[in-house]
């Protein structure tokens, strides 16, 4: 459970681990926001490879970070979404506004 953050070039990569729900989203969000503030990346990459469960709190997490990256003229990319996570994201139409990759 938790998050590992890597900085490569001007990218911030956040590897999220465990469940994303209302309870865990607060910590994940705070840790990513501290790094965005300190590092001012041009792109934030959220990696969901090790996310075992996600409810709509994950949509709030992504939309909130999308806004913070936009405010510093940066972008956001989602990576390695399972079919369940994609299904939740699709409800919010997230795939239409964000880049999603599986590499």
């Amino acid at each position, binding site marked *: 459970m938790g998050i590992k953050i890597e900085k490569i070039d001007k990218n911030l990569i956040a590897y999220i681990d465990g469940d994303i*729900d*209302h309870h865990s*989203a607060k910590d994940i969000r705070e840790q990513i926001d501290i790094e965005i503030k300190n590092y001012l990346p041009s792109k934030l990459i959220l990696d969901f490879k090790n996310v075992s469960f*996600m*409810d*709509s709190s994950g949509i709030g997490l992504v939309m909130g970070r999308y806004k913070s990256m936009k405010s510093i003229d940066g972008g956001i990319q989602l990576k390695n979404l399972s079919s369940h996570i994609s*299904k939740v994201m699709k409800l919010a139409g997230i795939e239409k506004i964000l880049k999603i990759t599986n590499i």
Partner: protein
Amino acid sequence: MKNLLNEVKLIIPSRSSNESFARTAITCFFAQLDPTLEEVADIKTAVSEAVTNSIVHGYKNEIGNIYIQGKIFENNEIYIKIKDKGCGIPDINQALEPLFTTCTTGERAGLGFAVMQSFMDRLRVFSSLDKGTTVILSKKLSSKKNID
């Protein structure tokens, strides 16, 4: 009336640390029907949304009990009731609108009911101010396994 085959009841205090337990425990109860992985994820997500609503909205400034009931009927029909005795919803139709949220920080998507609606076959919401809210989720599982 449909035949009730099995049931479970859970009472938990509205602490956010119980969200994970609640959705996992109720989903485990339905494991006896041998649901598909997708059905497991659907049930888990819908229950997580309902329990989170009770914690975040129902018992906004207090800790109260959340009553969860799971039932299995014949033909693999499942029923889940999530009830709180919190503040209630002033306008249910407005609350059911996708993207409607009372959250002002921008961190809640307002999609809780939309998730419950799309991941389960049926969603019913009953609420009265200062008395609480009851959410009833039901779904027919594709499982061919029948329990006795």
